[in-house]
């Protein structure tokens, strides 16, 4: 029982980690809580839905769906950044935050009125379910194909993200912009391009998370991104916002906590537990597990 719950928690945690990575990267570079990030998950899930519906749900079309939704969401993410956030780059933080909330509502309600998306929830096409049932220490453990796909795809995504950020030129530029935007700009880095690139990568990660989330909980609707988005933000804060390994750890801790509190405390109160953790973390260690504490500059 416990082992089974842990497996479920891990798979959910990997999805949260993928979303949290986008939050953390965007926050690290422009210091903005991108409220519209959860909606990228929704758009990614819908794109996957259309691809899978058109070509049928097989492992190869799933890979196609992942790539198409990454591409679509990256474009939409950059478009939103250019249209809504860029004009406000030097505005007070509170204004940008409000615009982010506005962008989120716009995407959600916009998808609601689009005829091909619509307000009604839709069934997500699923792969043929094959589960391996194993006995571990006398307990029956079910490992479904979806869970394996979630974990494998997430690991690939995280590894490639880590590679891009650590070992490529553009990754180096991203790190330098997040450390000091002005200094990076003086060193000849095109800051606007780097910010757009960050939004593109973050949105693509959210799109992957969306397709995986929808294949695990097979339903899509315009407001599906809100709650996972919020929880992923909690995960990002938990791990230390701005820190990439922190987002992964935070996501997995959060996924396990949510599943365990659903199983052992109360399924209705699980969300309260998750948000309670956020409050607790911020009281005890506001910078999160991996975060560095910043000295306040006058």
């Amino acid at each position: 029982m416990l082992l089974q719950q842990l497996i479920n928690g891990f798979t959910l945690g990997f999805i949260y980690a993928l979303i949290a990575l986008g939050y953390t990267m965007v926050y690290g570079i422009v210091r903005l809580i991108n409220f519209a990030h959860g909606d990228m998950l929704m758009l990614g899930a819908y794109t996957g839905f259309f691809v899978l519906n058109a070509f049928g749900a097989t492992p190869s079309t799933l890979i196609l769906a992942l790539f198409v939704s990454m591409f679509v969401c990256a474009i939409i993410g950059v478009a939103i950044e250019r249209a809504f956030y860029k004009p406000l780059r030097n505005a007070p933080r509170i204004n940008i935050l409000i615009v982010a909330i506005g962008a989120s509502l716009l995407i959600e309600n916009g998808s609601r009125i689009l005829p091909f998306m619509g307000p009604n929830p839709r069934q997500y096409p699923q792969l043929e379910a094959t589960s391996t049932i194993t006995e571990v220490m006398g307990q029956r453990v079910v490992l479904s194909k979806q869970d394996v796909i979630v974990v494998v795809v997430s690991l690939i995504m995280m590894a490639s993200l880590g590679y891009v950020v650590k070992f490529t030129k553009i990754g180096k530029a991203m790190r330098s912009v997040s450390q000091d935007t002005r200094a990076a700009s003086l060193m000849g880095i095109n800051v606007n391009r780097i910010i757009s690139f960050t939004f593109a990568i973050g949105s693509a990660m959210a799109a992957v998370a969306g397709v995986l989330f929808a294949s695990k909980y097979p339903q899509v609707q315009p407001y599906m991104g809100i709650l996972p988005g919020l929880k992923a933000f909690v995960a990002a804060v938990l791990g230390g916002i701005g820190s990439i390994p922190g987002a992964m750890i935070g996501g997995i801790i959060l996924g396990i906590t949510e599943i365990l509190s659903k199983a052992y405390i109360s399924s209705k109160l699980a969300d309260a537990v998750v948000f309670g953790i956020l409050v607790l973390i911020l009281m005890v260690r506001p910078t999160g597990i991996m975060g560095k504490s910043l000295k306040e500059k006058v």
Partner: protein
Amino acid sequence: MLTKVRSFPLLLVLTVLIIGVIAVFIRIGVINDYAAQILSFAGINVIIALGLNLITGFTGQLALGHAGFMAIGAYAAAVSVMQFNMPIFVGVIIGGIVTSVFGLVIGFPTLRLKGDYLAIVTLAFGEIIRVILVNMDALTGGAAGLKGVPYFVSKETIEKNPNAILWVPVLSFIFITLSVVIVLALVHNLLNSSYGRAIISVREDEVASGSMGVGTFRYKMIAFIISAFIAGVGGGLYAFLFNYLNPTDFNFIRSVDFLIIVVFGGMGSLTGTIVAGYLLTYLQEALRFLQDYRLVIYPLLLIIMMIFRPGGILGSREFSPTRLIHLKSFKKALQRETAAEREETK
């Protein structure tokens, strides 16, 4: 100084006159019950937005959980009237007090946090409150909602005199609009006191005001608790206006609605909040014919506003009816003064 003393009776007369005229219009049917309800609802939105403006516009701390505070106030007021037979007026006050206790408990850990974190924690608290309200079935009716909350006219009065129900829209309007005036006076006077100056100094520069000896945390707490109290009062009024409460009415989107009012009116402008509150509540109803498209126009408006007029309608300016009236005498005084100055220079 002199104008302030003189303007009080003027304001009082003006307020009584406006409320009285509109109340008569509602009673004789010039303004129908539906429009009266929108007016009352707009009043509630204005009240809560005034509270939010105090913490977000004047103290500079973004709070995204005011729907949660409103929910606490609404349920506390409804339960105290329904279960403990309190008068409605007392119920509303109890709603405010209970909510301010929650404000104290929530504010104590969170107001030490800076900027974005506060926004997220208040958001999280709003969600937690909602989840808990759903789970406290015995007291709140759970997910099915709380039915049978009384009107502003008590049930006994209506039983005794069935005609009293005709007075419900008028009484709701008067009760709520008077509350708007009282809350406005409270916040306005607070901001013009030494407390208010300290609160505004926290917004302008927390580090600087701290080093000048302002207890920034203390003033943030004061602003937050008063803000919570006002939201609780607004919630109580909401309960008696609509007579039905459901936890889903108090979700994140509603918190955003209040924020939109504050931002539209101008963060740091009380009169701006009032204008925006009435205008936007009316607009929401007027745009109903657009059906779902309304949901798109609203956030789009918000974004465009933020990009092209980030200060809101009024910025941090205030619009004052007494100043308009006094403007004439002020101009005359100014002319006299400049004339006198000219004499002196000669």
